[in-house]
């Protein structure tokens, strides 16, 4: 599903440039639940940006769903994001003036789906995350866990190939974190590729595979115990 070969990325910093990713090789198969771990500055956010088509890489090969990603303009990247990727953010990033169901329906708007169909589909996905009764509430009327569930429903609504979650539990307490992780595991069991970025060991351990990054290189890439027991 995601294939990365010898990926390099550096950012210009004044006169010098900061070499953030130094030749990554990573292959994530369809249906995997992978977490990327690393302290801040390890390059994990940069990796997510590149995988999420929010940024471009300098060198190396990135293949998403069999399609090599290179020389994308903004419009093409936006269309690919809409089609293949679902995002879940640490700070939820729901649009504050839209209700839960409208937030979930938003990616479908950019996909060009008609209004009625959008709301029906959005409702299905809200039901799936257990928030059907909260459909017409604004984000500020929802708890943190509920917001993240809405965000997950929003990530899923376009039936993407990969769900990218950037510290999905970073702003949640441990109980809520667990329920959000349960939800992610559940959608993974249904066959979705899930790509989580975290710095919390407990969260990473709930996935099947942990990739550890340090200073722009992969230092380890192993299956978790959980994956072994399955």
């Amino acid at each position, binding site marked *: 599903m995601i294939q990365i070969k010898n990926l390099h990325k550096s950012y210009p910093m004044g006169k010098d440039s900061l070499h953030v990713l130094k030749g990554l090789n990573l292959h994530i198969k369809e249906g995997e639940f992978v977490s990327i771990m690393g302290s801040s500055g390890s390059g994990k956010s940069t990796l997510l940006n590149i995988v999420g088509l*929010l*940024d471009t890489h300098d060198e190396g090969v990135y293949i998403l769903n069999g399609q090599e990603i290179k020389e994308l303009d903004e419009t093409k990247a936006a269309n690919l994001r*809409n089609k293949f990727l679902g995002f879940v953010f640490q*700070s939820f990033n729901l649009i504050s*003036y*839209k209700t839960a169901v409208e937030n979930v329906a938003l*990616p479908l708007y*950019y996909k060009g789906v008609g*209004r009625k169909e959008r709301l029906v589909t959005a409702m299905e996905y809200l039901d799936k995350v257990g928030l059907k009764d909260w459909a017409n509430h604004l984000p500020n009327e929802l708890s943190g866990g509920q917001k993240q569930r809405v965000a997950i429903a929003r990530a899923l609504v376009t039936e993407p190939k990969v769900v990218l979650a950037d510290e999905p539990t970073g702003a949640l307490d441990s109980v809520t974190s667990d329920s959000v992780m349960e939800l992610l595991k559940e959608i993974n069991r249904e066959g979705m590729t899930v790509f989580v970025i975290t710095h919390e060991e407990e969260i990473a351990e709930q996935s099947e595979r942990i990739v550890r990054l340090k200073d722009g290189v992969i230092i380890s890439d192993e299956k978790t115990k959980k994956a072994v027991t399955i």
Partner: protein
Amino acid sequence: MFDLDRWIEIFETIRKNKLRTVLSGFTIAFAILLFTLLFGVGNGLLHTFEREFARNSMLSIYIYGGKTTKPYKGLQSGRRIRLKNDDLSYLTKNYEDKMLGISPTMTRQLQGVYKGKQNSYSVRAVYPSYQVLQSAEIESGRYINTRDVHNRSKVICIGRLVEKDLFGERSGLGKDIFLGGISYKIIGTFSDIGGDREERVIYTPFTGFQKIYGNSDNVEGFGLTYNPKMSVDEAIAFGNTLERDLKEKHNVAPNDQRAIRVQNYAEGNRQVSSMMFGLNIGILIIGIGTLLAGVIGISNIMVYIVKERTVELGVRKALGATPKSIIGMIMLESIFITTISGYVGLLVGTTVLRMIGDGLEKYFIVNPSVENYVVVGATIVLILAGTIAGFIPAQRAARIKPIDALRGD
């Protein structure tokens, strides 16, 4: 291309962000309102000015005969100079290209009578070309025409106040009234911004009137309009030439001031037009100032709005919004709001001006009003300013990496 779904999305955004909508809408509406009011009041001032100073056509020259005060060529002083019909043909023949029109005049104070009502009016006998010399505007019917002059018709065109005196609120058009015992038919009525005195004047064809009251080919005076293509200096020179020629023709000493008097409005015209110019510049500065304030206001608000929405725009981008759709959304929203509120400001402004009407007359403001195209132009300027002011930050927002936008909080 009209995309209903896009508009629904925009309407929802507008509806659910009331503070933002009201804020930018209010700025635009207020700027247009102020613009309309200030411009309107300025125009009101101009109208007063026009009424006070531009009574008669500003391109006119009047010529009257008087008495000589100096002996000349063996003729003694105190001789009465009478202008005659042949002076008219003389002037017409020699100066046709410099004049728009010329009319002989003769005025008598006569008693006007209609069904027992009567009053004294000044009756002025003229040619059709006299109309351009006056600020008279025909309200109903018509002015004296060439055929009336040719046929010596006993017809009259009466001032608004003459009609009011004799007919009250009813129309006098087509009725016959007596002037000095002779019956005349009313063929038209006029109003005159020159004031009450001018609106109590009655015009009649010169030929018939001269026959009755002049007994001969005597003419009291001439009124003529000079070619507007002439500069003020040329017009003054033209007046002097006329005076010199007529003096020579009537054997009057060139330096005799009383025998033939030429009143040239060109001199006053120069002062009046420079004052009008000054007033116009003043109004223009006021207008541009208000507009500029509005432009700066809406620009600030657009920058603020886009800044406030950075996170939202980042989310939309991550969810698949193209840069084009982001820019389009912000632009359409701003154009929609500025157009609607600009129109509201325009409507309120013109309504207020209409309500003021002539209520501020004692502050020298008459009929304050603004031409529609001026206000519409101002609104378009503000819409453009809002669009441009929105476009730059919108473009920046569309270019920003979503992750940066999302981490920025």
